[in-house]
């Protein structure tokens, strides 16, 4: 049974979360630096996350890093950026096989040294990140930003949010923009990386089999984080009442149209209506038993994929479906019909029970994945929520039909986005 979430404070703004279990074959360490999601830094964060894997003080190229990781039985180290509401998370991961299963009892210690160097000692020439690495990664990041449109489903989803939150920082693409990328100099980049290291709130999660006291000592000793003036990230604004629905049709050379509807839920995750919102979205579009699946896919054969999803931090809900171009009007009106039926309370006690069970199953399932456990602890930490998995489940169980109807009445359609064929818009 999991106890109340209580991280250990190992620095003024550094929290250590230890998730000890003997069921995994690996140990996972994640180090999260919290940044505000801002135009001034989102591109820099993304670019730095691509440069760091190019080399450290001891291992001066990605080839050298790859070699040492292969020697450590295929351990993995990585660095990435993520968007959690209007926070830009700069994160490091290291996954190592547990020494019990391979012939290297020192593996964890060796891994920690590499991780620390990866974070604190990137490969530098004359105090700056290597020029070649910076330029190559600028080119790669440019390709990545341009490559957004290659995954059409994801593209439609992201573009809907972008249009919906046009005036908000939340519209920023997690990998930044080409325009900002081109201007970046090596000096600026390194200065910014130092700012990340010195001024961010840090959380460290460790998932695996270890002795907690020893682990605490080990982390304190090996992962050195030199904090100075730490800047806290502010809570994002989430309440919006759209006075008219925005409609965006974007033409692209695609075979299938992608419809994306963006809603403002106006329900902060701190609210007692947050758990009812999760149940609401599950009844509407959570899985094969949901209203959207049953009515739009199974009854009308309009699509293969259709779902709704809640964006916790920014209090949004998105509905997505892949359809024929000519079925746009029909699908849109069917989806709207399903959403308004939620308002009218047209769902049964069985629908509620099924939705709750499905949510509980997915919450419980997180405990079987080291990565998901780490993410869960971190997400709770940045939401200032100490609820354990069991407590979360209790809250889901207590949701009533009245709560769900209250949720339904708060949700407002903000933006309709349709990725459609080239001829369709002209």
């Amino acid at each position, binding site marked *: 049974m999991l106890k109340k979430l209580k991280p250990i404070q190992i620095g003024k703004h550094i929290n250590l979360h230890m998730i000890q*279990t*003997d*069921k995994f*074959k690996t140990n996972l360490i994640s180090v999260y630096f919290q940044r505000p999601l801002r135009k001034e830094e989102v591109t820099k964060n993304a670019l730095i996350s691509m440069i760091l894997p190019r080399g450290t003080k001891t291992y001066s190229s*990605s*080839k050298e890093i*790859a*070699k040492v*990781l*292969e*020697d*450590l*039985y*295929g*351990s993995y180290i990585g660095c990435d950026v993520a968007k959690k509401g209007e926070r830009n998370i700069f994160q490091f991961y290291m*996954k190592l*096989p547990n020494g019990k*299963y*391979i012939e290297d009892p020192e593996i964890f210690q060796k891994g920690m040294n590499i991780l620390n160097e990866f974070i604190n000692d990137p490969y530098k020439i004359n105090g700056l990140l290597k020029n*070649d690495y910076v330029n190559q990664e600028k*080119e*790669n990041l440019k*390709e*990545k930003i*341009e*490559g*957004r*449109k*290659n*995954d059409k*489903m994801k593209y439609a989803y992201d573009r809907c949010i972008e249009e919906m939150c046009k005036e908000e920082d939340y519209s920023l693409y997690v990998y930044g923009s080409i325009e900002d990328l081109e201007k970046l100099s090596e000096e600026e980049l390194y200065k910014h990386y130092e700012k990340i290291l010195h001024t961010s709130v840090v959380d460290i999660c460790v998932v695996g089999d270890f002795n907690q006291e020893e682990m605490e000592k080990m982390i304190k000793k090996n992962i050195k984080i030199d904090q100075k003036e730490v800047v806290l990230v502010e809570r994002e604004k989430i309440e919006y009442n759209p006075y008219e629905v925005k409609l965006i049709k974007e033409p*692209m*050379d*695609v*075979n*299938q149209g992608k419809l994306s509807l963006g809603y403002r839920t106006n329900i902060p995750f701190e609210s007692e209506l947050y758990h009812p919102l999760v149940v609401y979205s599950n009844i509407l579009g959570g*899985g*094969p*038993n949901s209203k959207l*699946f049953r009515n739009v*896919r*199974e009854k009308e*054969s309009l*699509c*293969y*994929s259709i779902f709704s999803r809640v964006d916790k931090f920014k209090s949004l809900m998105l509905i997505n479906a*892949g*359809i*024929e171009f000519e079925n746009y009007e029909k699908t849109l009106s069917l989806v709207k019909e399903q959403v308004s039926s939620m308002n009218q309370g047209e769902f049964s006690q069985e629908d509620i029970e*099924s939705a709750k*069970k*499905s949510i*509980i*199953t*997915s919450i*419980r*399932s997180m*405990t*079987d*994945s080291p990565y998901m456990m780490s993410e869960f602890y971190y997400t709770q930490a940045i939401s200032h929520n100490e609820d354990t998995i069991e407590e979360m489940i209790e809250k889901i169980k207590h949701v009533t039909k009245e709560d769900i109807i209250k949720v339904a009445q708060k949700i407002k359609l903000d933006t309709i986005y349709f990725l459609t064929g080239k001829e369709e818009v002209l």
Partner: protein
Amino acid sequence: MMVNEINNKVLKEKMFVKELDNGLKIFFMPKEGYTKQYAIFATNYGSNDSKFIIPGESEITQVPDGIAHFLEHKLFEEPEGSIFDKFSELGSDVNAYTNFNSTCYLFSSTDKFYENLELLVHFVQSPYFTDENVEKEKGIIGQEIKMYDDNPNWKVFFNSLKAMYHNHPVKIDIAGTVESISKITKKDLYKCYDTFYDPSNMIVFVVGDLDCEKVFSIIEKNQKKKEKIKEEIERIYPEEPSTIVQNMIEEHLDVSIPLFNIAFKDVDHSLDGKELFKKDIATKIILDMVFGRSSSLYTKLYEEGLINDTFESEYTGEVDYGYSMIGGESKNPKEVFKKVLNHIQNLKSLGLDQEDFERIKRKHIGEYVSYYNSVEYIATTFVAYHFKNIHIFDYLEVLKEIEFDHIQKRFEKHFNQDCCVLSIISPKDVH
């Protein structure tokens, strides 16, 4: 009925096996401390099996492309509606997938496992097809096919199969085409169902913190009435030449940068069991040695800006076909292709590096162990390998038998320029 126990001391894992009178094989792997319970009911029947002789008949039966996948969709239908509702009531996630060689039905639960298991075994063995529900599915699968048509990764992969294979059905899309599925009838579905969903052609794999006896007894009770067909199903695969169809295939899609896939057709086949496993493991080690993150080729191509971190390699080894694929995004796929072939030529004269071999072997051992974190991975991998007569627990033992010399020989034989194709998805012309 005997229950066999198989142990793996390195992984500290075990598995129990039992074969029922009707030929159904049941595998159970306990996973103490795990919350998730996972079961797959699989048939050794995939999109490749569209031509066969029904036991007891003499004529060849040929069915429309995409039928195995269509059948997978339709098994969820019951006289009283969709089986999804019943799984939802139990709070579990049910799903299915079809690939070239198998069709798998699965669920994952955290509660009421045994009820879920009964339901799984029951619904897969109770087909209910009507003209109406077959017609309705055509629209849904049509959208699934179109979704894949917009997926450049899927396209670049399939086009390379089309360029490699003259006759083998692996070149045909798993879901078929909008046209081919339009011909599927209720009768076709029953014909395939009756042939390939015979218990002797199927297995159940269960993993989780569960009671072994109960797992076996529930399935056993359920199977009492189900008899097996005595004869083997004869599957007809056309003669496949060892040559390729064309060495270049290109298609245009709305993408920002070209995607490419370099594929080597494996002509050394008809192996199964440990021999096939050995080939599989050896080839994957070679791919990592030659194209992996620590290889000089990767470093060179990356630093020249010809590839980015999407560059990956993989090997697929089936009983009757196989291929290695190396691909990713590139501004200039043709240049990458040229350099890859040159590099292989050079390595053939210089020889591979034994130090690389030892290091990559360690990497694969660690990765193999780590995979056992995931019940999904265990279950899906077990099933795929089982149908090739391979037990995934044998991995470390087979790996240890592989010597550097074997690696050299396999490298020289498999990475043959004459059996190599380049598939490219290019951006659409802006004009």
